[in-house]
């Protein structure tokens, strides 16, 4: 393999960006997966998603000490903490009717603002250090190029998450209930299931996913004052671009964003700042026109 790529041809410099696009795209997917579930599937607009991720990130920074045990511990604590935060959010959301995105946005944005500054107050304004196990810290050689080992691991994690999420949403009774509650929570209640519990479950699951993403993603999109905003924005872009809840679409969108941010940047550095948003606006506009307003959210 090394021999193949060793000749410095014109593709070679773009090999690593292309691979990195995959890894980065998958990271974005993992970060966004909680929001896919929450917003794409359950139609709860949670602008505090970035905060949930940041909770995971800060947990990782606080607990990781370079050993595998601490990684497992951080993962557990991060997931639990973020899931608990999700349940709290669900409790806050209960008094306002579901389905109205704007008041949900108002509430969750407020929570994100307040929670974000509490996190920073608790952990300090400096970006904390994140120490992953030494085996993952280094770089490996891929096709004659050095590449961060940790990012390779992500490819596996993300694949597992994507598959699990798909199965839960499409195949389980819980997933069906969630989708049904989007259409008509009252009728779900008439089936004997409390929509409030569904909402709590959804936000807990979304929190757990975000927490996991935050812990695992900490070495890449590390915890810091801006993390929550960055993650929220990227996730929203991915979820909407992916067609609101379609798992395959979301994965595709995440990968596209990964490649735009890496390969696109490598190919057209001067256009780099415009790439993401221009591509997003173009894709969304074309799709909206293609469907001529018949955008179905499923």
């Amino acid at each position, binding site marked *: 393999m090394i021999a193949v790529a060793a000749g410095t041809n014109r593709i070679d410099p*773009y090999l690593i960006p292309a691979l990195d696009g995959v890894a980065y795209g998958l990271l974005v997917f993992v970060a966004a997966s909680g929001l896919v579930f929450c917003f794409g599937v359950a139609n709860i607009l949670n602008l505090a998603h970035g905060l949930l991720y940041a909770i995971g990130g800060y947990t990782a920074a606080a607990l990781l000490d370079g050993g595998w045990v601490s990684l497992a511990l951080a993962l557990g604590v991060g997931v639990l903490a973020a899931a608990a935060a999700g349940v709290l959010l669900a409790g806050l959301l209960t008094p306002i009717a579901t389905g109205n995105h704007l008041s949900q946005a108002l509430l969750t944005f407020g929570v994100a603002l307040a929670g974000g500054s509490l996190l920073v107050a608790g952990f300090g304004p400096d970006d904390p250090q994140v120490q992953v196990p030494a085996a993952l810290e280094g770089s490996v050689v891929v096709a004659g190029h050095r590449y961060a080992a940790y990012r390779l691991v992500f490819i596996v994690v993300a694949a597992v998450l994507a598959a699990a999420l798909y199965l839960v949403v499409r195949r389980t009774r819980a997933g069906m209930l969630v989708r049904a509650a989007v259409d008509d929570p009252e009728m779900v209640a008439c089936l004997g299931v409390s929509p409030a519990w569904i909402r709590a479950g959804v936000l807990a699951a979304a929190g757990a996913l975000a927490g996991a993403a935050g812990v695992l993603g900490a070495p890449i999109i590390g915890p810091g004052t801006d993390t929550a905003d960055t993650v929220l924005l990227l996730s929203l872009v991915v979820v909407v671009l992916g067609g609101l809840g379609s798992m395959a679409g979301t994965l595709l969108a995440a990968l596209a964003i990964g490649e735009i941010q890496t390969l696109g940047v*490598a190919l057209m550095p001067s256009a780099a700042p415009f790439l993401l948003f221009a591509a997003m606006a173009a894709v969304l506009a074309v799709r909206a026109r293609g469907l001529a307003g018949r955008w179905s959210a499923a």
Partner: protein
Amino acid sequence: DDAAGPSAGGSIKIGLLASLSGTYQAVGTEIRDGFQLYLDTHDGKLGGRQVDLVVADEGNGAQTAVPAATKLLKQDRVSALTGIVGGGSVAGVTPLLNETKVPLVGSNGRPELKDVSRVWHTSYLSDEPGAAIAQHVRDNVKGSVYAIGPDYQGGWDELRGFTDAFAKIGGKLANPDGKTTFTPFPATTNFLPYFARIKASGAAAVYTFYAGSAAVDFVKQYAQSEIKDVPLYAAGFLTEGGVLNAQGEAARDIYSVLNYSPDLDNAENRAFVAAWKAKHDGSPTTYALASYDAAAVLDRAIGAAGSDPTPEAINTAIGQLGQIASPRGTWQFSTTTHSPVQKWYLRQVRQDGRALSNTVVGDLATVGR
């Protein structure tokens, strides 16, 4: 409630505007603490007058800085303004300064301004670090140098300082088109594609400028990338303050140029560092130092402004200060740009006891216009 006017009761109101929330909170906090440290070590007095320090939050930039500054200037009626992290915020505040005739002794951001009659800075001009290190890079790097930085005013200035000076003394950039590569700011969190380009360019060294989270990402990814063995030179913020902790091992051996380092050997610095360490964890940064010096400047200017230190009088007095002794060594305001003429140091990230820290490894040029 105007009783706190300059002459009443021997006290004076100073406004401090810094980012106490948002992206630049770390810098803003240092700036506040640096100023406070000077006050604490000088009985809370500047120029013999009790200081009433009014702090306001600059937030993420001009859109929050302007109203906050308006409050300091028009409601609290401070006699002088200090702090301000972002260059854009300074630009936004300047019209207010001219309207209220209050001087600003800034301690960080420094935009290009046509009229600096009321604007002073204790930090430096953005193009100075690059200019100061160019000769050293030219002498020590065998080959071309790749220049890369963030795509905003500060980044443009920082990199221009280096590339202009470097070109003037015959240095060659490795960038394919001979122009600096700018990365979207603050959107870039992934620098790997840029590293691939640097690798392809065959550069013998890299010169850069990043601060805050971007600096952490840049350094950590650099250390894992295929150009990890290419020497990295940078304007000092790349490894300054809190970011160095977050970077950890990845920052080892990075060269940086800065007007200050906590291990400088002079009496002022020893006192400053000791006082800082008594109150805070870790060593002081250049941000804290600049703010500390801003307080020193105000201290002397208010003292020199006579019995009625009006904002105008303070402004005039600042212009006549001459040499200022400081932890960074002696410096003075340039008469044209109102920013320091000062000495620059080359530093390298090295082991210092248990932690990594920036260690001075040499003196560079004295720069200032």
